[in-house]
């Protein structure tokens, strides 16, 4: 069924609060690095897939076309995909179906975000994600919905904030070993619990930052991948699922859409027991509770059990199931689509044993990356393996 698809190269820029480089330039640097990493050039690329989140950040309408030359897409089959925060991982799925279809043998996957262009603060741009008639007149802040989701999650399962913040402690510390990290820091649970309350139960240090940055991968069919590298990382399964727009009609305590996406990806990958067959995970962590929520949706633990797993140290780099060894969005930064793709890049480096100081202790052969977005509504999942 379709031809096998491998990741053969990866590149990224630093994640920073405000980059001097334009969006096109960020995309260029990540793309150039990804091509160099597998000693390929643009002439060998059949198609380009681009992921980037809301146009309102950059203030550029039809942002895909605008970024195209930076992403190496001049004169090539080129499309942009878009599922809000789920875009970064989805872009790999887009690259996958370009090649698995048999239409292409190589594909560049590029994700860029330049959130700093929006003035004075990117958060205000998020007002426009709400329903224009039934919600925007209430002047919601983006944080509302996440705080309400976190509250529902905590209350349903009787979870303690002290346990949840361990995710932020872990990820920010993991990021100290990431050369591209924006907000890596050794912080304690007390620091987080004492940080400014933004929208209770969400506090300043529970949240990932606003970032600029880009990440790129090179994907290839089996025949090309074997020529380019002796360490291809195979895309074994992909899945995505979008839940109803009526988010106030759903129980926010559990991300069912992530489970649906994970089931689709696991079925394709032949994963029947994710707790044992997945060795490393990069779930989406724009807030600390989200990593936990997503571990549960990915069926890496039971519902409401992820906080205890974190407290027990299982998700540390030297633990049984390393989770966000990159440092995640909480530590490396959150240039939305690029942050999602960074997670797949991290698995690529980890599975090849090239993650440097971030390399996890146990031998890892299969990993899962996941992103999430829209109105707490979409799950995008990729399973990779060697």
């Amino acid at each position, binding site marked *: 069924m379709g031809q096998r698809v491998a990741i053969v190269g990866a590149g990224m820029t630093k994640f920073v609060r405000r980059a*001097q480089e334009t969006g096109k330039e960020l995309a260029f640097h990540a793309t150039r690095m990804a091509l160099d990493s597998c000693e390929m050039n643009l002439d060998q690329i059949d198609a380009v897939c681009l992921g980037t989140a809301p146009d309102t950040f950059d203030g550029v309408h039809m942002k895909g076309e605008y970024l195209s030359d930076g992403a190496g897409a001049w004169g090539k089959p080129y499309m942009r995909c878009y599922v809000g925060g789920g875009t970064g991982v989805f872009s790999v799925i887009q690259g996958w179906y370009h090649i698995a279809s048999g239409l292409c043998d190589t594909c560049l996957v590029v994700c860029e975000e330049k959130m700093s262009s929006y003035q004075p603060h990117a958060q205000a741009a998020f007002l426009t994600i709400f329903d224009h008639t039934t919600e925007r007149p209430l002047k919601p802040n983006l944080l509302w919905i996440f705080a309400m989701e976190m509250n529902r999650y905590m209350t349903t399962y009787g979870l303690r904030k002290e346990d949840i913040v361990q995710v932020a402690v872990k990820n920010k510390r993991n990021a100290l070993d990431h050369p591209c990290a924006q907000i890596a820091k050794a912080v304690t649970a007390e620091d987080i619990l004492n940080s400014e309350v933004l929208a209770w139960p969400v506090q300043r240090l529970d949240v990932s930052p606003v970032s600029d940055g880009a990440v790129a991968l090179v994907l290839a069919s089996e025949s090309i991948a074997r020529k380019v590298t002796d360490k291809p990382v195979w895309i074994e399964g992909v899945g995505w699922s979008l839940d109803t727009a009526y988010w106030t009609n759903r129980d926010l305590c559990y991300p069912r859409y992530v489970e649906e996406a994970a089931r689709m990806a696991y079925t394709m990958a032949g994963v029947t027991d994710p707790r044992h067959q997945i060795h490393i995970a990069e779930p989406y962590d724009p807030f600390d509770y989200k990593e936990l929520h997503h571990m549960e949706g990915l069926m890496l633990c039971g519902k409401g059990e992820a906080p205890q797993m974190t407290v027990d140290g299982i998700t540390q780099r030297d633990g049984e199931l390393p989770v966000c060894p990159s440092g995640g969005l909480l530590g490396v930064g959150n240039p939305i689509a690029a942050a999602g793709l960074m997670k797949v890049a991290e698995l690529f480096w980890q599975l090849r044993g090239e993650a440097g100081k971030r390399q996890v202790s146990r031998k890892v052969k299969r990993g899962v990356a996941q992103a999430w977005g829209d109105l707490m509504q979409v799950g995008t999942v990729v399973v990779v393996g060697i």
Partner: protein
Amino acid sequence: MRAKAGVKQTPEIQYAGTGLSSKDFKEGKILCTRWTADAKYAWDAGIAIGKYLAGFKAGKILGVRCIKCGRTMVPPRAFCEWCFKTVDSWVQLRNTGIVNTFSLCYVTWDVKRVKKPEISAVIEIDGASKGMGIMHLLGEVDPNKVRIGMKVKAIWKPAAEREGAITDIKYWKPY
């Protein structure tokens, strides 16, 4: 192309990306162009939301019912998304509900800090199927006393001030 193990991702690799500070802008070290988008819209409310808004003006919360799955839904919609069919009837819901979840928000939508929190909530509306909520605000309540499961009722604007908008309900308060 030739066999290649790939470049080791080690700290000596130079990553692109130059971080700037606000100071760089203030001191004019960085040039930039500015643009305020002229993007204005007037969205047609349509059949379902149009009637929902008319209900607000009349001081009523309206929902729709799907006979097939038996759900009474709010906000109303012209179709049942589960059964993929047009909805069957309109139902007037009650002015009361239960807090499904809430947040105490100290930052406004445009990132201004406030001392007294805005209390956003998902409120399950009485008369609709279980779990059917809408997003709105809570008021006349001590932020520290808000709880999930709390019973609340809609506080409407006076009829003369209502305009057929979600804001015709000022907020919800415990009862």
